[in-house]
């Protein structure tokens, strides 16, 4: 029964076709005269409705869920029906009833179904692809944003030695637009000997695929301005092959100029410094020579005056005796002054041997040395049994201490019991030894001045001495890496503090400290 066979074959074929259609990764929907003819399983899954829901509501009702809506779809269908459109491709974002969002690519076309026009819709899920495309777009936009806005200019160099991209910053740097730059020859743009090395570095990077150290090239801008660029090139690969390199060029003309200027300034400062040092040394040598030469006439004056006094003193009237006496006193002061000057010039000239010892040892010696002064001032001196170890020249420290003690005695209070208290305190690598008296005190406006030579602020006529005692003290202390300062108010006593290194110090620490203090 051939007919039956035929019917059976046709039925089998249509079952097979239905099964295949249901297996397709695309959604298929066929509609004729507004009636649903067929839709496959994938279509249901893509739109998110059950077969039953689609059958009951119809396609157009479902299209209400899309942003373009029902009317847009109806319009498309009509146009296709009327033969105005062959087919229509339409990316359609869709919100499924379960809330998930997809983007469906929708192909609508007319098909011939047993002599009648039918509309076939094919749906493809392009959500993932679209997402990837979007991300790529964002990336590329970002890259463009970076390239176009960087103040360095960025370029891409392919392995054919052709520049395929130059970012617009080149115009700001050279005055040339990217395409103008590409038209010029490299020797015209970048004169000078550096170009050879630059080319070598680029070739090496392309050959080996390894990043080369940054290099410099000279360039002449459109306006004739000379400049220097620093170039950083990074090769990139496609598979195993070096495909090209990306370069970043930075205008470092100003930086180089600034560096050059700084170097020149350093040099000038150095020259200036050595001049000052020389002047200082000459000054010291001069002071030494002058004060040394002054000694000879002073010796003569001393000797002759003494002999004169011995010879004629008793025969002179009172006034003349007084004159002679004043001459003698003044020669003594002159001698003291010259000796102090000699001492002052000696500190910088002669290196004294330093050692480590407890400062109290030297303090006791100094107290003994200045015993006469403290006794005549009736000054009570208090100090602890130990002060702490210091790294200093013992001879010089005794000079410092003696000076501070005799000063305290000289400027002691006359209306109350004079006292001097010596204490010590550790400060990092330094030992701060303080001399606290209850004497006349010093107005704060003179605190800096008293350490300068020949300054005796608020001096009274009975003040003896050259006025450089504290200058000598300051020089000794600083020369040995320490520092000295005073805290005092007029009438309220003074505290002189000497800060002495406890260990042999690195020169740098001393310099930093003294710099800090001078501020």
């Amino acid at each position, binding site marked *: 029964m051939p007919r039956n066979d035929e019917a059976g074959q046709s039925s089998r074929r249509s079952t097979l076709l239905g099964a295949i259609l249901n297996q397709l990764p695309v959604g298929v929907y066929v509609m004729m005269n507004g009636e649903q003819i067929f839709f496959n399983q994938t279509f249901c899954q893509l739109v998110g409705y059950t077969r039953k829901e689609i059958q009951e509501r119809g396609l157009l009702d479902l299209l209400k869920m899309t942003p373009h809506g029902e009317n847009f779809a109806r319009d498309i269908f009509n146009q296709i029906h009327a033969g105005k459109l062959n087919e229509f491709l339409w990316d359609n974002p869709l919100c499924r009833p379960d809330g998930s969002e997809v983007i469906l690519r929708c192909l609508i076309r007319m098909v011939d179904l047993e002599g009648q026009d039918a509309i076939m819709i094919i749906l493809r899920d392009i959500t993932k692809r679209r997402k990837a495309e979007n991300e790529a777009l964002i990336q590329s936009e970002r890259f463009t944003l970076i390239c176009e806005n960087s103040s360095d200019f960025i370029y891409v160099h392919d392995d054919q030695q052709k520049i395929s991209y130059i970012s617009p910053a080149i115009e700001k740097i050279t005055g040339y637009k990217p395409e103008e730059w590409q038209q010029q020859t490299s020797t015209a743009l970048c004169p000078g000997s550096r170009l050879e090395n630059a080319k070598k570095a680029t070739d090496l990077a392309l050959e080996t695929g390894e990043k080369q150290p940054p290099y410099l090239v000279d360039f002449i801008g459109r306006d004739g301005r000379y400049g220097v660029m620093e170039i950083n090139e990074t090769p990139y690969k496609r598979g195993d092959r070096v495909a090209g390199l990306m370069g970043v060029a930075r205008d470092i003309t100003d930086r180089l100029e600034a560096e050059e200027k700084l170097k020149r300034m350093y040099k000038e400062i150095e020259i200036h410094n050595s001049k000052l040092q020389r002047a200082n040394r000459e000054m010291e040598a001069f002071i030494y020579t002058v004060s*040394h030469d002054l*000694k*000879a006439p*002073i*010796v*003569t004056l*001393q*000797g*002759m005056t*003494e*002999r004169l006094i011995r010879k004629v003193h008793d025969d002179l009237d009172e006034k003349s005796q007084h004159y002679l006496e004043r001459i003698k006193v003044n020669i003594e002061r002159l001698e003291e002054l010259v*000796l102090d000057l*000699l001492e002052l010039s*000696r500190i910088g000239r*002669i290196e004294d041997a330093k050692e480590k010892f407890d400062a109290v040892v030297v303090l006791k010696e100094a107290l003994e040395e200045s015993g006469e002064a403290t006794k005549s001032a009736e000054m009570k001196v208090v100090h602890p049994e130990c002060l702490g170890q210091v790294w200093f020249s013992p001879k010089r420290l005794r000079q410092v201490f003696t000076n501070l003690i005799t000063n305290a005695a000289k400027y002691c209070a006359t209306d109350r019991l004079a006292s001097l208290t010596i204490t010590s305190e550790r400060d990092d690598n330094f030992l701060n030894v303080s001399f606290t008296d209850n004497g006349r005190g010093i107005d704060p406006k003179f605190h800096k001045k008293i350490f300068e030579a020949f300054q005796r602020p608020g001096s009274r006529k009975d003040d003896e001495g050259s006025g450089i005692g504290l200058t000598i003290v300051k020089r000794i202390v600083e020369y040995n890496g320490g520092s000295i300062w005073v805290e005092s108010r007029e009438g309220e006593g003074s505290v002189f503090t000497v800060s002495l290194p406890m260990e042999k110090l690195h020169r740098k620490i001393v310099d930093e400290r003294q710099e800090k203090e001078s501020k």
Partner: protein
Amino acid sequence: MKTDNMVIVLIEDNPDHAELIVEALAENHVKNEIVWLDSGEKGLDFLLNRGDYATDNRTHRPMLVLLDIKLPGIDGIEVLKTIKESPEITDIPVVMLTTSREESEILKSYAHHASSYIVKPIKFCDFVEVMKNLNIYWTLAVLPHRGRTDE
């Protein structure tokens, strides 16, 4: 040939200083002859019988040399060195005269075998002290004196 072993040689360029020293000794009744030479060169010529003193018929072996540290031309230290390197006069005591107590100069003098030093202006008592320390005080011809001395 006569040997003058009672002489004191004074090498000092400053005439005032020389005068003060000579007078201080005279005032205190030191009767030794004092020979004053105003430069290091002349001092060495005298001591070594050369130059102006080459034809001198005396051998100069003074009991003491007073030598100023600072001299123009040949410096005091140089003179001291030459004296100590000359065998015939090396044993004569040399006392350095200085205007200051600057240690470096004094140490340098001792390094070259100076016997002692005195700070100017010379006080007679300092001079006596040095003479006693050097054990040559007895060679001084001090007359019994009347009146006061320089302390």
